């Protein structure tokens, strides 16, 4: 059976070039970069070289680059770090309603520490409402953290317009970025987890924002913020692609998914009701 991995926001395979670049340090070269003895020299040089190259890539100074273990760690460090650094200037931060949990929870933590946080709503497409954003900015706003590209529905924010709103006001913008190739659907009358289980039995990995797929049994906060009705959010299905996915992979998904949808709809009382309504009955 073909195996097609389309859950790359969850995790994605290592790029072969990254593996090759890292192999010497995983196998032969070891040592603490801080050490006085010369075991530390090679790792230290490698890290500083990487830092300089990254800085060059985004036009920053090397010392402005801080390596972390994950995106969640980065968001925590950026938001809590900025808030702490600028608290003399103000204690208000702004985020959007569709941020990653690492951003939302960082904001909540800051609220417990005496900061104020505003969550700006989005429209039905997941675009941050710019007028609401403008209204939310206060004299004491120090950080605005808005996800550039949403990992769940793929919406790309108008980051330039957002930057204009912040310009000259001493506010740090934090455009969190998480963009995989993203195809997000809601398939009415059937539930996400059931779709994922059947897709998995056909060798396809995807994800869903349905309540039943979450531990807390809550529908995705992103779909909820977009005011997608709960019964539609239940039918969320998300494919996120990687570079190794082929056209044949996608063809296979397109062949496999419709019979799965049919099978679950045949079981669904909601679909039966819909069909009856369509045919004019009750």
């Amino acid at each position, binding site marked *: 059976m073909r195996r097609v991995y389309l859950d790359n926001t969850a995790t994605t395979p290592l790029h072969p070039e990254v593996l090759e670049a890292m192999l010497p340090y995983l196998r032969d070269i070891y040592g603490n970069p801080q050490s006085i003895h010369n075991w530390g020299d090679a790792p230290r040089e490698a890290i500083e070289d990487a830092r300089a190259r990254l800085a060059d890539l985004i036009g920053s100074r090397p010392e402005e680059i801080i390596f972390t273990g994950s995106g969640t760690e980065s968001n925590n460090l950026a938001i809590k770090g900025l808030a702490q650094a600028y608290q003399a200037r103000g204690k208000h931060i702004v985020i959007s309603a569709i941020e990653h949990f690492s951003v939302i929870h960082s904001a909540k933590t800051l609220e417990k520490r005496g900061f104020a946080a505003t969550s700006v709503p989005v429209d039905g497409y997941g675009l941050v409402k710019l007028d609401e954003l403008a209204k939310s900015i206060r004299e004491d706003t120090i950080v605005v953290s808005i996800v550039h590209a949403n990992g769940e529905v793929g919406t790309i924010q108008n980051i330039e317009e957002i930057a204009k709103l912040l310009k000259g006001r001493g506010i740090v913008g934090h455009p969190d970025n998480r963009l995989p190739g993203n195809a997000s659907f809601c398939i009415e009358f059937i539930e996400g987890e059931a779709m994922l289980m059947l897709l998995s039995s056909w060798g396809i990995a995807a994800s869903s924002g349905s309540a039943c797929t979450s531990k807390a049994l809550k529908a995705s906060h992103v779909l909820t913020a977009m005011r997608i009705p709960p019964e539609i959010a239940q039918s969320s299905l998300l494919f996120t692609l990687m570079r190794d996915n082929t056209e044949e992979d996608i063809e296979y998904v397109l062949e496999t998914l419709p019979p799965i949808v049919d099978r679950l709809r045949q079981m669904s009382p*909601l679909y039966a009701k819909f069909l009856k309504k369509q045919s004019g009955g009750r």
Partner: protein
Amino acid sequence: MPVYSDKVMDHFMNPRNVGEIEDADGIGEEGNPVCGDMMTFYIKVNDSRLSDVKFKTFGCGAAIAVSSIVSEMARGKTLEEARKITPALVAEELQGLPKNKHHCSNLGAQALNKAIDDYLSKQGKPVKTRRREKRNG
């Protein structure tokens, strides 16, 4: 994905008794799409026995497996016996359910009971509504 027992997976992949009964003697609907799961049970009654039980379910893997096993457990039973199908028995029959999916087993037992209630009220018989199980979900 939650870790489901082999029995849950079997009933999810090959659900028994899916469908509607056109001339059902009783119909019971439980849950709603807003909270995530909805089950409709259809029953045929002959000589106080459930001669046929069918269901339609909107919901997760556990909800579908629960509906399927409840339909199997209820078939051929007397109304009194069918009343004794509790959520705990359903979960046991499925070799267990993940903790956050226990509410699905409540829904299944409740939907079946509602179908029996519906049958009894149509017959003009007193409906002995069972005390509703507290929902976990």
